[in-house]
């Protein structure tokens, strides 16, 4: 994968264009695909495994497997939908192997550049963040995934449905029920 090209005429190529270029040996296109989708893959797997370290490993395996089988992507569905289907299989496989409990392990925040917080109010911010993440982990899986995919990654309800093995309508219901439960737990006295 030594060929490097710019995208002079297409500053924001869509997934199909990136896939075509990646299959043609364009390493930048491959890297762009990974960077574009690693977040949704990671958070989706995190929603299933409820373990940040395991989710990082499974997300990596998912993306490697997807790239190695890029020729198998036919374009029948959106690239992201295809990717999340691979992620679901990998995450379920990891669950079966480890017989991981679904208790939350959100006590430790994953290392990330974004975790660097300003000195003022840092502890309060981290505590609030942990509180919200723990509440998310308590949701039933489909509600948790629907909230995560919609709110954190902006997927359509149709895509959320595909990723959670639900209809579009059910995905919408799961999302709204999840948000309502989070408000009950995090905001029991109403908006503040």
């Amino acid at each position, binding site marked *: 994968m030594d060929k490097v090209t710019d995208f002079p005429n297409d500053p924001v190529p869509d997934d199909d264009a990136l896939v075509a270029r990646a299959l043609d040996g364009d390493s930048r296109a491959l890297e762009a695909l990974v960077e574009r989708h690693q977040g949704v893959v990671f958070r989706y797997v995190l929603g299933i495994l409820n373990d940040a370290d395991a989710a990082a490993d499974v997300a990596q395996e998912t993306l*490697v497997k997807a790239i190695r089988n890029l020729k198998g992507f036919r374009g029948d569905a959106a690239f992201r939908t295809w990717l999340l289907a691979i992620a679901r299989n990998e995450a379920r496989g990891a669950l079966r192997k480890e017989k991981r409990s679904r208790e939350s392990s959100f006590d430790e925040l994953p290392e990330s550049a974004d975790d660097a917080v300003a000195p003022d109010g840092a502890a309060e911010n981290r505590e609030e963040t942990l509180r919200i993440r723990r509440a998310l982990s308590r949701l039933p899986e489909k509600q948790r995934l629907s909230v995560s995919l919609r709110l954190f990654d902006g997927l359509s309800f149709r895509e959320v449905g595909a990723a959670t093995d639900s209809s579009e309508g059910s995905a919408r219901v799961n999302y709204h029920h999840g948000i309502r439960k989070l408000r009950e737990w995090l905001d029991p006295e109403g908006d503040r």
Partner: protein
Amino acid sequence: MTSTPSITPLTPECVRTRDLLPLREAGTLPPGAEGELTAHVASCEACAAEARFLARVAGARVEVPAGLTARVLDGVRREARRPVFTPARTLLWGLPIAAALILALGTNLLWNTGNGSDGGWGTALEAPTSTWGDEEWMVAGAPHLGGVSDDVLRDLMEEIER
């Protein structure tokens, strides 16, 4: 004094707004929807409260661990270096290996001294060092003297007497 949450009936605009609010937080709002969203939130306290709550939850989004892209690309390069065995390639490599194994087995059977100490594998490809190793008279690891020449027979007898 505890307050009960107000139950505001949702209008169609409220339903649409609440569908769109998460997309604004995720940065995937459809073009042209921002104005409509902002206008409704400004006029509807219930949707404004929903917008504030979603912004709070969105702030807890877990970001991708540092270095994941590099790990993925390294993993892809490692996989690319691993030999891929297709049926054709398996046949291409497998036939000579199978032939060599058969040859080794057959040669071992012919050269086996018969003591069975190592099943003959240790001497499978060793050159015979004595008359006993001569393949003329060894059949399936056992001596078969029928048809052995007189000269060979004499050599054998001399070895036994030594």
